[in-house]
């Protein structure tokens, strides 16, 4: 079916509704601020399906409602991958891209935004727009794909995307080691990931077998593991700080009231600056946010968090918007208005 026909119900729904919430599998529904509107909100879903996998060119085009697990399986048959890596692989590709959370191998694979080549999306004014292009290199016009990654459904409903695939590395190994992450960041060449919690360092080595052996040899007291387990709990978030702050920041996280150092409440991505946190109670998540801010970072709530009796938007994106008056705040407001003049797409998501 041609895309105009596929997108027609989405275009109609957006045009008819006063408030629209683009929805995938709802696996990321708690991330950031929640949709809130005085109008009845229409949930708009997106069809699924792999449209075209150009195996030899390492690109794949999918409808945005396709679950990540379906894409992963299809690509694996050809020993390829797109490292989207959501916590829950029933997540849709559109949902992952719109939320903009990069996976734990960002150090080696690059951020999520670098995997997207072309987008087709429905704007708030009900137009089906194409941005970017299907080739692996492209500077033809403005970079709408990157604008949409992490836009939380506030600028458009993603309908179809073209992604860059990577060849599956010859060997992929995960290790737990006693070597400190900072030291490994200095001495490992192109590691896929260096993650650390308060007890151990987790390293992902990927590539040619002989190269992986070189990396493996420097890991002290190593134990093979299946992969990285991100901290889990009812109150979760991800901190983004300048990478040089990781040491001081994680030391402060260990001092949060009621947190046992050995509970594995945080996992830091070395060389990147992302710290995943999860706590038993909301106060602890709030404390982590305070620490993040003191270290020049910010915390995006992923789940749980403090109750919000005032109805005021949750923090997280606040920094971008609270500053209306700031140049970036103004830019955000104007971009939002440009793509969604009536403010109907995911209202409240960005505060």
């Amino acid at each position: 079916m041609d895309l105009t026909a596929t997108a027609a119900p989405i275009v109609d729904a957006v045009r008819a509704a006063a408030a629209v919430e683009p929805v995938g599998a709802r696996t990321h529904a708690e991330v950031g601020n929640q949709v809130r509107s005085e109008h009845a909100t229409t949930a708009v879903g997106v069809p699924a399906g792999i449209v075209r996998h150009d195996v030899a060119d390492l690109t794949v085009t999918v409808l945005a409602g396709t679950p990540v697990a379906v894409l992963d399986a299809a690509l694996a048959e050809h020993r390829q991958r797109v490292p989207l890596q959501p916590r829950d692989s029933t997540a849709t590709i559109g949902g992952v891209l719109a939320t903009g959370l990069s996976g734990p191998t960002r150090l080696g694979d690059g951020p999520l935004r670098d995997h997207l080549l072309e987008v087709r999306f429905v704007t708030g004014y009900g137009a089906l727009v194409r941005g970017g292009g299907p080739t692996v290199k492209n500077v033809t016009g403005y970079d709408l794909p990157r604008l949409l990654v992490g836009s939380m459904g506030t600028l458009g409903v993603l309908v179809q995307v073209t992604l860059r695939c990577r060849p599956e590395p010859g060997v992929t190994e995960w290790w737990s080691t006693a070597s400190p992450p900072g030291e490994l960041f200095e001495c490992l060449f192109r590691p896929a990931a260096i993650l650390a919690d308060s007890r151990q360092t987790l390293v992902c080595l990927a590539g040619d077998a002989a190269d992986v052996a070189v990396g493996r040899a420097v890991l002290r007291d190593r134990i093979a593991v299946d992969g990285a387990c991100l901290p889990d709990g009812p109150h979760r978030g991800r901190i983004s700080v300048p990478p040089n702050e990781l040491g001081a920041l994680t030391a402060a996280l260990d001092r949060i009231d009621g947190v046992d150092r050995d509970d594995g409440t945080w996992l830091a991505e070395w060389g990147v600056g992302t710290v995943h946190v999860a706590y038993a109670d909301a106060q602890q998540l709030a404390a982590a946010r305070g620490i993040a801010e003191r270290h020049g970072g910010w915390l995006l709530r992923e789940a749980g968090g403090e109750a919000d009796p005032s109805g005021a938007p949750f923090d997280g994106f606040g920094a971008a918007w609270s500053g209306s008056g700031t140049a970036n705040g103004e830019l955000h407001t104007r971009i939002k208005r440009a793509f969604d003049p009536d403010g109907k797409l995911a209202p409240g998501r960005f505060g």
Partner: protein
Amino acid sequence: MCFPRDAREVQAAVRAAQHHGVPFVARGSGTGLAGGATPLDDALVIVMSQMDRILEIDPRSRTAWVEPGVLNLDLSRAAAPHGLHYAPDPSSQQACSIGGNVGTNAGGPHCLASGTTTAHVLAVDAVLADGTATRIGGARPDEPGYDLRGVYVGSEGTLGVTTGVLVRLLPDPPAVRTLLLDFTSIDDAATTVSGIIAEGILPAALEMMDAQITRAVEDFVGAGYPRDAEAVLLVELDGLPDGVTAQALAIDEIGRTHGARTVRVARDEAERELLWKGRKSAFGAIARIAPDYYLHDAVVPRTQLVGVLRRIYEIAAEQRLTMMNVFHAGDGNLHPLIVFDRREPGTWERVHHAGTEILEACIAAGGVLSGEHGIGVEKRDLMGRLFSPIDLDAQARLVEAFDPSGLANPRKVLPAGSRCGELAGTRPVPEGTWI
């Protein structure tokens, strides 16, 4: 024209332009090939060459803050003592500026594995069109809100003037190997490229040169390229020694399966540098053949290289033009190069005609208008071949959000009338504008 020395002076220049309702154009080194820095409408030209300091190199986080006028190669030179380098390496790297690279989202041979400029820019300090200074992006992996940084990189000076750039530096690879494969047919070389990619090998660089440019380069620098080859591939592998060796063997085999006559491995750094010098001086070399050249830039899916290259040579033959190809084959980024003498009557028209036909052939093969040079004024009016009016309107809305005044480098990138309901802007590009 003005030559600001710091961000405040840039701000003053932009405010003055706004005050008088005069358009302004930021200019780096002026090496851009799409005319992005060409002033139209008597614009104020803000030349960034005085802002050429490397402010900080932080080896710990592998980043550097630089002023926009810093030359690309100077940054890598300054990072070298730390065992780091700045990955995007346009062939013009001795002359072009980081600010200009951000403007065009510049690429280079070594962007195949590591990505173009946008993958290496973490933050930009910019003076927006209304004269406010702001920081877009940051040292943190994610910023709250939209990826303004992603939108800004490659916007060809239409969204603001860059006054500082935070770039990512990469560690130098422990091992590098450079291979030269030579072929008796262009098709074989192009199938080898597709073969390497399909095999799942992503070399650091994968460049192709056809017979004419290979001979021209050989005459010019004597890099030891085979004069009788129909095409050569320059392949660079980097990483840890064993992996590099394994990949070199694999490429040797893929090349020979697809008809490579010889596969030569650079024995030492001197030989490697000479091979690269040949590739990077291609444009100097052709100056000896004819006084003028027109360098195109388009991208096609890598699986389409064979067919598109054939069509490009056909177009040249039909238009009786000398055409050479030297390009970033690994990402399908073609650079058809037409050499000519504009004093010959009718030539200029044929050059233009051929250019348009080439771009049409690339679009028909599923390609795009530019891989690294940008749109500027050169391809502005071809944007409608790739994008619908609705698509162009969406891009124009984005520009308007950044610059409601429309004074930041106007009439670049998007054709007149892109914003639905916009009055078609009218004045044509002045005669003789250098693009």
